[in-house]
């Protein structure tokens, strides 16, 4: 049996807004094994992002346990959590969250600055490699505002890769992108997954969910159902069948 990377039990998250309490998550149990490629789905407001943020240690649950790579997150203090994020996690935000007025290369380098074991030579090398991996070798010195949405998202993905994480979390990584670019991002994720990385991503679109190995569907802060994807799509194959010119025309 493979390693269990994520194991959560009875996870709850409440938000208190004045008198009102919003139960964003109402008891979630979930196990994800190493090497899995999981898509989290569900209607708006069902708690997908809340879940992913907790998985990414960006937020703390109100109740429940979260074991990440056999470490109980609840026992870690702030600094230790930060270190864990730096070493084990890569997060891709729906809104990219790149530093403005900062080149793609410097954005990708950023996580390595907080890893004192990485020297400046290695830092740059790894950032360049990550950008090459997402196909942006020629845009290394561009600022975010000089890049298209898809390119910015790829920079964000390169940033999430650069620290060689065991787990990549992505919140609607294709939410703002056109079909072709979405597929390209999925191709990237499938490649990474093939190389053994565990990936969890959130999406609205059932098309995009079909690239995963497993789908987890949320509803009202709970897991409604889970299913293994029967007819898994391969992004590389699909991209070959897509007529390039048409799409370019459509873009313009």
């Amino acid at each position, binding site marked *: 049996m493979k390693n269990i990377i994520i194991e959560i039990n009875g996870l709850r998250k409440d938000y208190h807004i004045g008198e009102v309490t919003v139960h964003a998550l109402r008891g979630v149990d979930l196990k994800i094994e190493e090497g899995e490629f999981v898509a989290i789905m569900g209607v708006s407001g069902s708690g997908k992002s809340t879940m992913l943020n907790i998985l990414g240690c*960006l*937020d*703390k649950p109100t109740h429940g346990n979260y074991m990440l790579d056999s470490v109980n997150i609840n026992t870690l203090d702030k600094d230790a959590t*930060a270190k864990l*994020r730096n070493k084990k996690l890569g997060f891709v935000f729906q809104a990219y969250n790149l530093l403005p007025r900062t080149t793609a290369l410097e954005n990708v380098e950023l996580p390595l600055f*907080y890893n004192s074991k990485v020297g*400046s030579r290695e830092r740059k090398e790894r950032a360049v490699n990550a950008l090459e991996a997402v196909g942006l070798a020629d845009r290394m010195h561009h600022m975010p505002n000089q890049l298209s949405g898809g390119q910015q998202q790829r920079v964000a993905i390169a940033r999430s890769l650069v*620290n060689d994480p065991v787990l990549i979390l992505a919140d609607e990584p294709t939410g703002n992108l056109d079909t072709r670019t979405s597929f390209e991002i999925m191709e990237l994720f499938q490649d990474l997954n093939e190389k053994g990385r565990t990936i969890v991503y959130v999406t609205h679109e059932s098309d995009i969910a079909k690239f995963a190995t497993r789908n987890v569907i949320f509803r009202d802060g709970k897991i409604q159902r889970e299913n293994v994807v029967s007819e898994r799509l391969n992004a590389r194959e699909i991209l070959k069948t897509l007529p390039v010119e048409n799409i370019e025309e459509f873009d313009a």
Partner: protein
Amino acid sequence: MNLTNLFKIAIRALVRNKLRAFLTMLGIIIGVASVIAMLAIGEGSKKSIQDQMSSMGTNLIMVMPNMQRRGGVSLGASSSMALKYSDVTAIRNEAASIAAVSPAVNANGQVIYGNQNTQTSIYGVSEEYLDIRKLEIQSGRIFNSNEVRSMSKVCILGQTVVDNLFGKGADPVGISIRIKNLPFEIIGVLKDKGESGMGQDQDDLILAPYTTVQRRLAAVDYINGIYASAVSEEKSASAITEVEEILRRTHKIKESEEDDFRIMSQSELLETVSSITNIMKYLLGAIAGISLLVGGIGIMNIMFVSVTERTREIGLRMSIGGRGKDILRQFLVESMLLSLLGGAVGIIFGYLIAKGAGTLMNMPPVVTSQSIVLAFAVCFIIGVFFGWYPAKKASNLSPIDALRYE
């Protein structure tokens, strides 16, 4: 995170937002520069007032005959003859708080050189007079005690007299002129003293040995006044008491009688000066405080205005593994760099502004090291604090809350 990374991150963050960095620095520059310039101008005017006062001789004590004795009834001619040279000798020998003393015998008259002539005051004095009145010789020399004893016909001219007789810029040392028809040799010329505070030309005079003036020009056996200087400003009061006691004794004035002389000093002037100086001190303090406040608020503003963007940045940095302390250090280094640089530029600007204003106002500004330290320290502390404080608050948020901040 090691130091190199820390500085690299901080410098990148500064370079990334040059405008914000510049505006922050501007706040610090204005704060530092205005405090330094204001204090330098204030300090400079304080000093130039003090200099002017002391150039009038703050230690100066003058003794004149009291012409209005006994309830304003003038005693006629004899009262103006109350002072004798023996009084000078008595003061010189007995008054411990007196540094120098000189008699003064006045004469007015026409001075002639060639076909030029001018009307001026001739003061018969001893060689100590120049020290007492803070007069300086521009060329030539002062008369010596031999010349005083022998009633030599030598004289020292003020600049106005030189101008009137010889034309501007002339150096008449060695030339002979006629004062009240007697030939006098010019042995020296006084340095320009300009107008007094009361608009009186202080260079329209001739100095000669008091013996010469007393005997040859005025033909009197009394003296018109005594000029003396106290050993120090603080000793002025005791010097006055001493002189009064000595003169009352030598003039044989009874207990019940009023003085037949008047002692005048600059002490009232001094009081005014020190109260002006005090007012200026408070004024300067207020100005410095206001400039610091304005500068400080400027710094605060720009720091707080950028909080939203920076909070997101902090959220991002935390989400990719930055610890709270890494972020705080980055912000500390950033604001320290800005404050240091801004402070340094501010010092230079403050200095230049002070110089410029000094030239305009025609007085040398005094940039004190205290003002530099004060301005720099306060702005530095404000700058660093308000760079650090928002970061401290933001780094206490969870990464996701910081990222969502608006």
